[in-house]
């Protein structure tokens, strides 16, 4: 279970910021004053640190942080 979570946290930033780009490459809808593509990139500036933090906590709880 923890392993699965770890894999999700590691791959999410890559999938969101590289793989799915062709699908978010659009202007509408405009959210918080940002066209969708820019909103999406902005969102992942904020979400990526949470992925890193999650990985850090997982490693810490497993004691695999050297």
């Amino acid at each position: 279970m923890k392993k699965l979570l770890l894999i999700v946290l590691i791959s999410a930033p890559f999938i969101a910021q590289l793989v799915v780009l062709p699908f978010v490459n659009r202007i509408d809808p405009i959210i918080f004053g940002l066209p969708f593509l820019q909103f999406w990139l902005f969102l992942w500036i904020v979400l990526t640190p949470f992925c890193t933090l999650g990985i850090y906590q997982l490693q810490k709880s497993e004691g695999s942080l050297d």
Partner: protein
Amino acid sequence: MQQGNLTALSITIFIILTVVLIGFLAGRDKATRSSVEEWSVGGRRFGGLLVWFLVGADLYTAYTFLGLTSTAYTAGSLAFFAIPYSVLAYFISYFFLPKLWKVANEHKLTTLADYARERFDSKLLSSLIAIVGVLMLIPYICLQLSGIQDTLQVAGTGFINVKVVVITSFLLVALYTFFSGIKGPTYTAIIKDVLVWAIMLFMVVSLPIMHFGGWNPMVDKIVTEAPHLLTIPESGPKGITWFITAAFVSSLALFMWAHAATGVFTAKSADAIRKNALFLPLYNIVLILVVFLGFIAFLVLPDGTDPRFALLALIQTSYGGIGQGLAYSTIALASLIPCSIMAIGASNLFANNIYRDLINPRVKGPKLTMITRGMVFVVIGLALLFGLVFPQALVSLQLLGVSGMVQIFPAIVISLFWRNQSREATIIGLIVGLVVTFTVYSTGTSLGIYEGFWGLMANFATVVVLNPFFGKKAKHSSNAVKKYLFDQSSKEEQLVRKGA
């Protein structure tokens, strides 16, 4: 060129001189230049916050702001590739930088090439990495040079001889770097980062209000008048495939740069580096909004404005006087301070990994420290020379910098995790990667994919295919770094297996 602005010019020059003075004061204590380790990585005593400022100051340069806005001005949303690129670079760094820092700390290493030498017992590899590093970094220093040059040119036309002022300011930077080492740029980096944040936020808030009555009306106007700017082109030589591969390769390359590595090695603990990996993406909150300033320039400036001056011209038309002075001095500092860190990184490679590893292996102690420090003048001198005399010859090297730098990724990062990676396969892979990158670039056969991506794939493939031929030797040989990296963890693994 149109007449400059005297108020703006005076403020810019005043702030530059203040910062240079602080750079000198930072090195009052003689200890800052007592050894290569003190001078180049501050004796590895910097805490998380200081490293954050330093790495941030390092990576968000004048070129970042001027280059991205001018890309936005001409090529629209392609400029946003810098966002996923740097966010992912910090994310990836979480997985290898702490480990690399620990090896460097344990074995008193100050450059990435030092690490490769100790890891693979190969001076050939370390000097190769150093040559690539210096060759790619000097054009990058030149870019910083053009940053300050453009600033002074727009503000100072009609008042000063721009070239003389540029040369003087760079010599001052070389002098304070020689004198204070990494302490110089660290303290000034804080001033620069605070100014960058304040000024960029100020511009992002005020420019849309001045020209369009607010952020939302501005976005509406771009949507109706220039919607092509807001999405990435679906095809063409630089389309979405280019965007994705460029972002990916650049993110792997970021910490391969000598100046980035210098910044990282100043940290006092692996945990300080983890914290940095966590918080560095936040720098991009400002950056993504700054790209929009390029769109404003597109809508506001008269047709035929040189894209290179897009941001600078926008600032001059919009503010003039004091506002322009503060903005320009921020950009000038964003050009001088990274330049200082880059010069430290390049001098270190020059002295330790080209001069010592290749030419005079017996040099050490105070003499090596002096040579390393003296190299600052050589590096900045070369950058000045090329920048002022052959600006055109540098364009290719600048375009290929990232693609070239990323080729050392297998030697530096993969080798932290793969015990049996052999020196021979790594060296051949590095060379193949460089050759493929340059060939694809010069023949124009990239097929819409970033050049460095082709090179890196060729590099990886070469290492994987050739390694079985040399891997046996690598498997049986060992050294201090290998022991440190692999033997402990294999013991732990055995324990875990026994426990399970």
